[in-house]
């Protein structure tokens, strides 16, 4: 791992009496794909709320390139759980949303995203509304909206959680190809063990609430990755770890 771009040290967060994150410490290097893998309700989305500034941590430090995160300047492009496409905007206008917020004119923003539609498998759907797209295409549109913001790092919150198994597998392969090509520094949170193994350079395994890191797993497999014995072995190891860690069921 090269010098850390993002580093979280001892992050804790509680909602009233509910301690959601214990003592969370992670690091993500430049160009690295890192996953946080944890059961539902373990506080994964909360981590992203802290990073995007929607919430403040109770304790701990959040550093980017060695400096504390500034509230008015966040170096992240965030992709929420579910696609969060706006029904009332055409796909092209959904994908330019971030540029629009940055103050880039509509025409200039459209010119910037238009060439990317083909690579994202959305060519010809620029003028469609989200309701006219399949689940997989909606996720690709949401990812396009995320990467086109040209931020230093991607935050992906269970991007494929709502898709059927086949589409999900297809999208995972596609994302891996895209990532290999572009080398985005990425932090993914997911509860899908295979997804984490297929996509990540490193995986942090999060315990059930209060979430803390119980293991850090490197995935030294070559890319492109396909499901097979090597992936299955790592997957089994992580599952054992998660299931053997004592949890209070909710």
């Amino acid at each position, binding site marked *: 791992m090269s010098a850390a771009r993002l580093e979280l040290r001892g992050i804790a967060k509680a909602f009233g009496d509910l301690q959601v994150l214990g003592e969370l410490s992670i690091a993500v290097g430049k160009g690295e794909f890192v996953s946080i893998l944890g059961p539902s309700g373990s506080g994964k989305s909360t981590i992203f*709320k802290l990073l*995007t*500034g*929607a919430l403040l941590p109770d304790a701990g430090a959040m550093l980017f390139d060695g400096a504390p995160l500034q509230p*008015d*300047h*966040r170096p*992240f*492009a*965030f992709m*929420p*759980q*579910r696609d*969060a496409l*706006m*029904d*009332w905007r055409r796909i092209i206008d959904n994908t330019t*949303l*971030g540029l*629009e*917020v*940055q103050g880039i004119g509509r025409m200039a923003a459209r010119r910037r995203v238009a060439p990317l539609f083909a690579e994202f498998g959305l060519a010809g*759907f620029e*003028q*469609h*509304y*989200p*309701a*006219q*797209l*399949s689940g997989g*295409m909606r996720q690709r549109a949401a990812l396009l909206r995320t990467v086109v*913001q040209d931020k230093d790092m991607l935050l992906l919150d269970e991007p494929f959680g709502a898709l059927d198994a086949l589409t999900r597998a297809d999208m995972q392969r596609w994302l891996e190809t895209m990532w290999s090509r572009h080398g985005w520094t990425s932090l993914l949170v997911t509860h899908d063990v295979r997804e984490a193994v297929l996509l990540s350079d490193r995986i942090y395994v999060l315990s059930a609430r209060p979430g803390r890191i119980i293991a850090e797993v490197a995935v030294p497999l070559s890319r492109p990755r396909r499901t097979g014995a090597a992936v299955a072995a790592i997957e089994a190891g992580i599952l054992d770890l998660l299931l053997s860690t004592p949890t209070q069921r909710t």
Partner: protein
Amino acid sequence: MPFIRPVAARAATAFSRLWPAVLSVGGLFLLWEAYAQFSGIPPTTLPAPSRVLAQGALHSQALWDNTLPTITATVLGFACSVSAAFVFSVLIDFFRPLRRALLPVFVISQTLPMIAIAPLVVLWFGFGLTPKIMLVALVTFFPMLIALLQGYASTADEIEQLVASMGAPRWRIFLIARLPSALPFFFAGLRISITYAVVGAIFAEYAGAAKGLGIYILNAKNNFRPDLVLAAVMVSATLTLLLFGVTVLLQRLSMPWLRLSGSHKP
């Protein structure tokens, strides 16, 4: 493009949607006609619809002269209430404590009986257009305000968090996410209020006016002309339907994505 259909096909679907309504309304009129013809009730008590239509046609000029002021009062009053509801909804959305301060006042305004308020407003503001506009605005303001507030609240958390994560300040989040999210609620409120608006205008005129459907109805009643009362009622019903149609049309124009079916998914 999936949403441009040939005119003929559109007309055909429009007709297939309309014929149940035409049948039910036509059926009611037939029943009414038969009852008025064969029950022996004198037409000065219950005129048949054929008589109402014939007399309405005969007095069409007077009816039209009295419909125009009603339309004016309805549209102006409604425009006032929608503008006011929008301004207050934005204020309340940005300054949440205002909600608790203002909502009770607005709720009380809704409990005022029209029968007591209308003559008072006419007494204070005269027989002109002003009191009508005020009364129309009074009856339609609250449903519009509630519709807008509910609409803002319906914004998906994810969308708001997304726009915020892009660095948008509060007012941009409002414009980009909350306001468009409220559109379906806004139009639902519009459809409900527009029907109150016509009734409100007629009631205001009834309480005192130089011209208008309300005063026309009052005069016709005093002259023992139930046929003309009912003719004016038919005009007001038609007016309401037309205004309702306008709101539906506006909604279709401003929310084209609602007309999409899922069948175009690749």
